[in-house]
């Protein structure tokens, strides 16, 4: 087998180029933002504008692809279809909001202007990762994304927690990448291909050798690390807390979506194959880890006092719900609709919550604790109400998009026949309601004291928060349009 057939790169004509146009725009834009950022006085501003323009162009390009529902299979490596176009659009939107959120905060936290180009590079990596069916390309995309995010996490130069978080994330992430690469090579050794569809075809028709399962276990560990599932979660709280809040917002929204879509892709092709009896063990592992993530994340979040750390643990719990959603999908009728919906709603809610937290942090240097939120809602009712809305959405209370997302996810799992897992999910969500409410209780039901946080002023963060709030309510009350859309593209 010659090397070329392993990396089947096609010749690109104009009709192919328009599909990778968003990626090209992002990469060029990132370089330009990097160069403009070197300007002495106005570097931040130029980089900010350049990255917004870049994202706007990329959004326009992806939007037109999505509108015409065009698809393209580029070699056997990249696949662009409605789903990937939709996800690309979402991650571009989320990145734009992150960029908005970053501007204004960057000076205060002593961030370098490179943050903008790193966000763009990271986004390019995400788009690549969600569009590929090839394990090696997935690895490359993972690295492009991760390297950008490692640096983003460590960007807060005046905080030692940030450096610690960055280093921790980098070392553990590097280990995960290594596992992924080694696992891929073992899978290649077993099946002779990196292409997920071919791997699936191989194990359906032939007896898979032992090294396939070893390789799969390594890949699975790496992916579970990336999505932050129990017991690969230990980086999550430190990184979420240590990073600047807008980077945390970025991680909990776009990075989360990307990791999960890649995970779903691998799960679908390499684990959810009913003809291979040994794979049922892997499925049980997912079952257990899903339940464990829900239980661990929710119960540990209760005892957290810093709000970013609390949300980090809650994100582990949400990972558990999403694993459950993927686990519960019917193999015969594979449709990621509930998972995509949940991810979309959850990402926007998270982005909203973190943009509010960055607003509240405004004049504080330290992380916001619950005590500092005492009476905050009384002093700033609008911000308090918005944060409550996001927290209620995460808790899955009706009127919010979080409820619709949770409803769809739990519903599809019940249809898949996994009722015990749903019962665990439901009972642990009651636990989660407790700690989400606790924040609301502090904000509205405790008297303010002289430690109470005073909200800062940031246009970017306010826009991000209001936008997320609008989406949260809009899709909480009238979700039909988005449900139809997601159903169409995930078919």
């Amino acid at each position, binding site marked *: 087998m010659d090397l070329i057939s392993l990396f089947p790169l096609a010749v690109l004509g104009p009709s192919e180029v328009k599909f990778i146009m968003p990626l090209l725009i992002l990469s060029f834009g990132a370089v330009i933002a990097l160069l403009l950022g070197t300007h002495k006085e106005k570097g931040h501003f130029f980089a900010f504008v350049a990255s917004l323009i870049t994202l706007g162009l990329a959004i326009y390009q992806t939007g037109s692809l999505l509108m015409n529902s065009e698809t393209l299979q580029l070699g056997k490596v990249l696949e662009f279809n409605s789903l990937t176009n939709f996800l690309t659009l979402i991650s571009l939107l989320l990145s734009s909001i992150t960029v908005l959120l970053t501007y204004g905060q960057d000076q205060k936290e002593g961030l370098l202007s490179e943050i903008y180009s790193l966000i763009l590079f990271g986004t390019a990596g995400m788009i690549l990762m969600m569009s590929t069916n090839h394990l090696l390309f997935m690895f490359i995309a993972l690295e492009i994304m991760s390297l950008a995010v490692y640096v983003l996490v460590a960007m807060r130069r005046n905080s030692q927690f940030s450096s610690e978080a960055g280093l921790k994330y980098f070392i553990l992430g590097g280990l995960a990448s290594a596992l992924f690469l080694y696992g891929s090579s073992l899978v290649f050794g077993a099946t002779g291909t990196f292409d997920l569809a071919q791997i699936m075809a191989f194990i359906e028709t032939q007896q898979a050798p032992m090294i396939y399962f070893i390789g799969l276990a390594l890949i699975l560990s790496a992916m579970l690390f990336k999505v932050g599932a129990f017991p690969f979660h230990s980086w999550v709280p430190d990184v979420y807390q240590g990073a600047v809040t807008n980077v945390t917002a970025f991680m909990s929204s776009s990075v989360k979506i990307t990791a999960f879509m890649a995970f779903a892709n691998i799960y679908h092709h390499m684990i959810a194959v009913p003809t291979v009896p040994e794979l049922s063990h892997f499925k049980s592992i997912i079952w257990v880890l899903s339940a464990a993530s829900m239980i661990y994340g929710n119960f540990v979040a209760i005892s957290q006092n810093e709000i970013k750390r609390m949300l980090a643990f809650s994100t582990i719990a949400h990972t558990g719900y999403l694993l459950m959603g993927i686990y519960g999908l019917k193999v015969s009728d594979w449709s990621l609709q509930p998972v995509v919906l949940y991810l979309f709603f959850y990402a926007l809610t998270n982005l909203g919550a973190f943009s509010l937290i960055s607003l509240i942090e405004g004049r504080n240097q330290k992380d916001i604790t619950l005590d500092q939120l005492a009476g905050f809602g*009384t002093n700033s*009712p609008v911000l308090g109400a918005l944060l409550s809305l996001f927290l*209620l959405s995460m808790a899955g*209370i*009706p*009127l919010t998009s979080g*409820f619709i997302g949770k*409803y*769809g996810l*739990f*519903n599809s799992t*019940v*249809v898949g026949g996994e*009722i015990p897992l*749903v*019962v665990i999910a*439901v*009972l642990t*969500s*009651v636990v989660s*309601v*407790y700690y989400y*409410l*606790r924040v609301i*209780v502090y904000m*509205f*039901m*405790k008297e303010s004291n002289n430690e109470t946080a005073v909200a800062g002023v940031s246009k970017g963060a306010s826009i991000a928060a209001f936008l997320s709030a609008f989406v949260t309510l809009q899709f909480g009350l009238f*979700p*039909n349009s988005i*449900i*139809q859309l997601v*159903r169409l593209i995930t078919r």
Partner: protein
Amino acid sequence: METHSHILSWIIFTPLLFATLALLIPHKFEKHLRTLTLIQTLVSAALAIFLYGIFDSTVAPLQLTHFIQWLPEWGINYIVGIDGISLPLVMLTAFMAPVAILGTWPHGDLKKEKFFVTLLMGLQSGMYGTFLAADLFLFYFFWEVVLIPMFFMIGIWGGKDRVYATIKFFLYTMVGSLLMLIAIFFLINATSDYGTQPSAAFAHVSKMNFAFDGSSLMSALSSPQALLFLAFALAFVIKVPMVPFHTWLPDAHVQAPTVGSVFLAAVLLKLGTYGLMRIAIPFFPQAAMYFSELFITLGVIGIIYGAFCAFAQTDFKKLVAYSSVSHMGFIMVGLFSFQKIALAGSLYQMINHGISAGGLFLIVGFLYERLHTRNLDDFGGLAKVVPIMAIAFMIMTLSSIAMPGSNGFVGEFPILMGSFLSQPVLVLFAGTGVIFGAIYALKAYQLVMLGPRTRSDLTDLHDLNGREILAMIILTVFVFGIGFFPKTFFGKSDATLESYANELTVKVGQYGSH
């Protein structure tokens, strides 16, 4: 008929429209917020009276239905409708709201008043919605929405331990309702197995028949119908509340502001019994029948235990709260007796308890506002100082202890009479609850209004003022009106109750022949 098809939606969303208005009201008009709330409750009451007028009492199933597609793909639609079971409860909500507002007008300067009235209006929308929903998902939606305003109301304007009470209230309800949600998923998807589109409309779900095997406890517990029934029933009995799930109620009541207590006792608890009557029992009749002895027993325990706890209280508000546990036990007994008379009695008792408990909480509120204490030992001999309040209190006490001629009698008597047919021994115990009820209620009355005065500063206590009297007069009209002319007030429910009981008998009969 067709011309009024939107009236139910108007009833549900009118409070919400006013809430938007209240949020947008400019700062200089903020002192009129309560007038706005009163206007809203009066408008809602007017709509409800109009509804009562056009309600066709000869039609048994849901009428005046209004259908809007919402999430067709998931089998979720906005369907509202009303029948003889929900009509009295809607009327109860419509009348208790202005009474509650009138009875608790100026609690000094209320902090964050705008937020308070907004929540009050949102709460009413949620309650109307729950009673009028004709789709399981919509029912669940409103059921949860009701929680949020109540959570804030207790948590922000409550007493000393308000945070503990409100979180307990929220979590208790959440546990039940999320299990109910799983059952709803199951039901919606099961409808598609019956060859129809997935649908959670009451009309569809009621036609389904789930497997039930009552040959042994294990086989019963593992049959789908029993699991569905228990999932729904748990959600509802927590709300009722039935012993042993009642502990959130005294906490929530004691900490809640008076308006909150009135709404909680008068309407919110009825959501639970309404759910049992509307969903849990008719949709899963065989399982309900199978577990009926358990629920009646727990109901009877609730009656007696609640009465004893009420007797032991020194806090007046807690006493009324425990009396609710006791009186709601009667409704449980009536519902699970599967007798036509008792089922009707349960519906009447829901209304009657709403009136009497609401009235008693208002009295507690009057006293607390004047004396800033709820300790029963701090009162005494008030009847001479505040004679009008004493009369009002007496009327509410009589209603609560089910004196013949008051509304309470109209509810409890048919329950006991009907359920005696199916469970004579247990009902004998339930009957003692009436006596215990009289003991603690009269004890409370005696400690507050009669006997020697314990405090010297009570002489300048001012009696009920005009609006408080108005609130009590409205309640009094209902106490004696229902007491003497039950047919006039509940006549419109007859057709529905008749067919409800018949259908239930038929469905359970199939189980008997197993």
